[in-house]
């Protein structure tokens, strides 16, 4: 009787269970991971494509853009241009991991270590996720959202719903509260609230009000700008939220749809900010787990070689001048950083001691990592932990691209003068607040033509892509019901660099 957990490429449930237990022993006792209960679901390639197209969620309302994504991914997959991800994992409790039936047993083991332990630990412990998402409620909420959208389609027609969702999707990146903690969406509350609101409106409806004559001759005084802004809570950067609450022409169900899209955007907000750490964490965990399994003689050499082959292709980072280059690979960069931090904690050099006095030589590499995973997001993580050693190893360099100049300029390279600057720039490249254009609703002309005024604070002269900006602005105008104007204002001197405007469609959308 061999001590190996599995042999050969085929998998079955017995092997999955055995391997899961072995991985759990390593991950929980040796690495000290703390996880949500796991639920592993075996799916086919087509189901994987399904999950892809609905932004990775198992339940999603219906919209054509998901169909579009599915069609494109499927075409790419069928032509062999793109492989499928081995797994998808969902931040929920229990934590859902999807694994594909085509994977070999070795891959299933990697996937379990990667998703069911690495990502799972990150979801449960990172403070962004703890603050911003509700792992227990999300599946219920999506179920509610799906049902609600379907009911709206039945009641108001596909096209009307589609128009609202199109507009909401265009504004999805601007439907996030960046500062206060959002109220936990809860299925039952949502439904009750929705029902109560409708009942209340039916109750207070009285046809008599229509017949009350309007008082003639009363003209509203135009309010001071500051009063008006205060009344509307302006400026507001959460455009979807503002439209949902304040748009004068939306119907109740339309507001609810905006709310659903906003909640989903909010749910994904932490994931966008922690991509690097999340993948780095999961990759470091699966690497450590597989290495330990092999050291303990639980997996054979063949499986180990297969693992190393697929692991190296996951963390492959083409150089900047390689035609395959498409940005920094978060798997590689994250994995490298995790390995580097462990090295600093366990076997530091003098340089490390100078740069990282708190953790260098501290001894417990995994302990340091666990703390880092809990407390940081990508931007602050890089700022805190990117070491000169890694900058040298990846040969990072900093390039400035100024559209006014004919050439690009190399600002810094991996040397003594460059470390801090590179670290800072790289951290900023992972800062969502810096990456996404800063667009706010600043004013509404309530007494006049109700024009909605938005500002884009232009930093470093980076203007918006004009065609897209106009399309999105048209969506805003449609939701607002009146004209909308977007001014691109220089952050440096408040000069208006460009102006877009869109008028509302002649009939109110409904």
């Amino acid at each position, binding site marked *: 009787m061999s001590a190996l957990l599995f042999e050969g490429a085929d998998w079955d449930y017995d092997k999955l269970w055995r391997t899961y237990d072995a991985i759990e022993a390593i991950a929980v006792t040796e690495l000290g991971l703390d996880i949500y209960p796991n639920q592993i*679901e075996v799916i086919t390639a087509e189901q994987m494509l*399904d999950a892809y*197209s609905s932004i990775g969620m198992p339940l999603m309302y219906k919209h054509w853009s998901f169909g579009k994504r599915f069609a494109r991914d499927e075409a790419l997959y069928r032509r062999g241009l793109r492989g499928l991800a081995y797994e998808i994992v969902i931040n929920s409790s229990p934590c859902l991991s999807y694994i594909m039936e085509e994977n070999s047993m070795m891959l299933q083991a990697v996937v379990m270590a990667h998703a069911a332990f690495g990502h799972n630990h990150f979801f449960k412990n990172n403070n962004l996720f703890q603050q911003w998402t509700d792992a227990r409620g999300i599946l219920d909420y999506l179920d509610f959202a799906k049902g609600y959208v379907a009911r709206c389609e039945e009641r108001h027609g596909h096209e009307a719903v589609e128009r609202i969702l199109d507009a909401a999707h265009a504004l999805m990146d601007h439907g996030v509260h960046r500062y206060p903690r959002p109220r936990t969406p809860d299925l039952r509350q949502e439904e009750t609230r929705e029902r109560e609101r409708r009942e209340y409106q039916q109750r207070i409806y009285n046809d008599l009000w229509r017949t009350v004559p309007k008082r003639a001759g009363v003209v509203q005084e135009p309010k001071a700008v500051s009063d008006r802004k205060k009344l509307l809570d302006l400026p507001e950067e959460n455009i979807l939220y503002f439209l949902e609450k304040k748009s004068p022409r939306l119907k109740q169900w339309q507001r609810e749809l905006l709310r659903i899209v906003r909640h989903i955007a909010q749910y994904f907000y932490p994931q966008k900010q922690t991509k690097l750490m999340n993948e780095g964490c999961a990759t470091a965990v699966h690497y450590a787990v597989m290495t330990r399994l092999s050291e303990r003689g639980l997996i054979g050499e063949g499986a180990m070689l297969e693992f190393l082959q697929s692991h190296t292709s996951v963390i492959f*980072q083409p150089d*900047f001048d390689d035609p395959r280059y498409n940005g920094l690979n978060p798997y590689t960069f994250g994995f490298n950083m995790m390995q580097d931090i462990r090295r600093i904690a366990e076997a530091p050099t003098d340089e490390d001691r100078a740069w990282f006095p708190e953790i260098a030589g501290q001894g417990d590499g995994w302990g340091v990592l666990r703390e880092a995973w809990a407390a940081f997001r990508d931007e602050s993580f890089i700022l805190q932990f990117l070491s000169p050693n890694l900058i040298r190893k990846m040969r990072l360099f900093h390039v400035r*691209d100024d559209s006014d100049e004919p050439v*690009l300029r190399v600002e810094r390279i991996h040397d003594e003068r460059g470390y801090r600057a590179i670290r800072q*720039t790289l951290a900023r*490249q992972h800062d969502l607040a810096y990456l996404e254009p800063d667009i706010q609703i600043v004013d509404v002309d309530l007494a006049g033509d109700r024009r909605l005024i938005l500002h884009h604070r232009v930093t470093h002269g*980076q203007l918006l892509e004009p065609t897209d900006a106009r399309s999105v602005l048209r969506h805003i105008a449609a939701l607002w019901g009146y004209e909308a104007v977007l001014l691109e204002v220089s952050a440096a001197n408040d000069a208006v660099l460009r102006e877009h405007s869109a008028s509302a469609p002649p009939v109110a959308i409904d």
Partner: protein
Amino acid sequence: MNIIDRRLNPPGKSLANRQRFLRRAREQVVKAVRDASAKRGIQDIENGDRITIPAGGVHEPSFRRAATSGQREHVLPGNKAFAEGDTIPRPPEGGGRGSQGAADGEGEDEFRFVLSRDEFLDIFLDDLELPDLIKHKIKQAQATTLMRAGFSVTGSPNTLNLVRTMRNSLSRRIALRRPKPEDIAALEQERAELEAEGGDPDAIRAMTEQIELLRRRSRRVPYIDPVDVRYNRYQAVPKPIAQAVMFCLMDVSGSMTEHMKDLAKRFYILLYLFLRRRYQAVDIVFIRHTHEAKEVDEPTFFYSTETGGTVVSTALVEMQRVLKERYPIEDWNIYAAQASDGDNLISDNARTAALLRDGILPLCQYFAYIEVAAEYHTGTGVFERDTELWRTYRMIAEASQTLAMRRVRTRRDIFPVFRDLFARNRAHA
């Protein structure tokens, strides 16, 4: 931990999204399908295919920074020879090398995806309809099938509906206060106990009377009465004919060139696809003729050549024979498509006309006559003379809605002609 096998979940979860997407991109998809079908062989049409549509109509806009203005900073891996202060010539595509620039890059100019066969045909054959549906319904009425249709008070015992009957019985018993057997039994028990104890004889007598009364009552109100009984009722409804047979008639005499046969074949394929979308089963019968007609298989029909004169009526006779032997009109929808270059023996014209008018057309749903011509003809159109067969058929077509005739010269004409024949609001239909 749980392991759940989701592989058996019903597939096609994203089908609804796909339909929404196709509806959204309808205009572009229809155009792409039409273009594609013009370009490639019609044999391939059935397979569905990769369709490329411009991304414009399905673009999802968002606020994003233009890639060309302002200053931006990049940190890139893999420095080889650069030192601080070096300059790099700007890459040709405007420097979209940063980490954010390329995210949306793919599929922006055009968008490719694969249409399934059904989706392709749906769009391809959109707004085409079978002709003569009214007459078709009358024909259908000849075959009927029995369908459940409520309940009746009469019927044979094997159609007795037990549930209905017992429900009626129960409500009648409750309404008429039929005493329950348990109640009578309980009273008798009580009386027996009284007697055993040697109780009040008056009370015993009263009880006996009451029991008698109840007994009489339950005899008068029967457990099941004939008024309770219900039977399942069946009604004969016309059975739709779910199968069709398609006759392909073709002149294979020497005057038919390969080009002409190719045109004919394309038309047959279109008709076949079209019929198959409307009927569960479609049979094809190939009949070729020179001066004599024969039923053959498909390869022989299209690819072997024969020599001989041209007598069209033989094909019609053969068709009649096959119809009589294998395809009774009450079970089959009958379609026919005839392709010919228009030659016929002059003395045969009268016979052909008579056969078609009196023998074939009354049986058919539709009879399409396609006259194929050489791709490049010498004379000018004005002086082109109608062929023998064309003149013969035209006289019949004027009086009949079942017969339709068109001329086809090039491959490009096939689809328009086909659409013309089956378009939803045919002017003369």
